[in-house]
């Protein structure tokens, strides 16, 4: 018994294409439907079922090359979402923490070194957000000009993870330099809530960054 040609082609795509579950499933479903439409058209033209399926797959082309092109689109789609999340989340966290420090009742002043470090962290967050905004534009409208989506998605991943490491490390150091005010601040429920939100958002962005790296690498590895 010969293997079903359409099943073999779809199997190749399913094994090769990786990405967010829903987007991947929709993409594969669309391709599978298209192949079935082609089979139906050949059947209507009078071919027997096996020959109709063989011709449909022959017209389809090399499934590995199609998988590589689909992989790039999945990477681009994910990279765009991740860049949007980071462009919003990094400045939002800065604003949230500025509010905590501005409205809290922490005693004492801020040491000069802590002030400089805080500005550096803010600067890093806003710069990363601006870079993510540029990546977003590249992956969206500049997709029109053949910008390599896989590389931009990888760039978003690297940027996100480096920013998280920089901001995270800087924030820990900031609390060490400013121990008195920090200890007082975290005893307030609102500040503790912001800390919990920060940890959650950081974990979410960390996962996004790692997925960007993985999808970018898969898309760049080709057929």
């Amino acid at each position, binding site marked *: 018994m010969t293997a079903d040609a359409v099943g073999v082609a779809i199997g190749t795509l399913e094994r090769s294409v990786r990405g967010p579950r829903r987007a991947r499933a929709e*993409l594969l479903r*669309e391709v599978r*439907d*298209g192949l079935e439409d082609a089979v139906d*058209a050949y059947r209507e033209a009078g071919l027997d079922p096996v020959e109709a399926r063989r011709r449909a797959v022959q017209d*389809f082309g090399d499934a590995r090359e199609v998988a590589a092109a*689909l992989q790039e689109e999945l990477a681009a789609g994910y990279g*765009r979402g991740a860049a949007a999340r980071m462009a919003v989340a990094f400045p939002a966290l800065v604003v949230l923490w500025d509010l905590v420090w501005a409205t809290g009742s922490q005693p004492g002043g801020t040491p000069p070194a802590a002030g400089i470090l805080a500005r550096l962290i803010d600067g890093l967050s806003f710069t990363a957000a601006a870079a993510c905004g540029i990546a977003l534009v590249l992956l969206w409208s500049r997709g*029109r000009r053949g910008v390599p989506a896989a590389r931009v998605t990888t760039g978003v991943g690297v940027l996100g993870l480096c920013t998280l490491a920089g901001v995270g490390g800087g924030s820990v150091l900031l609390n060490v330099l400013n121990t008195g005010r920090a200890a007082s601040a975290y005893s307030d429920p609102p500040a503790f809530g912001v800390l919990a939100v920060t940890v959650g958002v950081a974990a979410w962005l960390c996962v996004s960054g790692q997925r960007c790296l993985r999808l970018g690498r898969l898309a760049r590895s080709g057929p």
Partner: protein
Amino acid sequence: MLLAVLEQGPLHGYGIIEALHQRSGGALDLPTGTVYPALRRLERAGWIDGVWSVVGGRKRRTYTLSRAGRRELAARRSEWIRFSGVVGSVLGGTT
């Protein structure tokens, strides 16, 4: 070319492939599998909009040319007419 076939109205993936084949008189013989990622790229660029809908009793992703896509198509068409005119003039002059 994908934008041009969508100018007449919404189509799903295989409908676009058939329209390309018919409009080229069968001369365009590109691998049909390449059409699907190309459609996603055009959608990402904002030139077409894709939605899932039921066509002929089956759920399919249907594409429509967007306003930005119509502008892009008009620009590409003008570019092509100008380019083919130049090439035609040059080739015509040598025969």
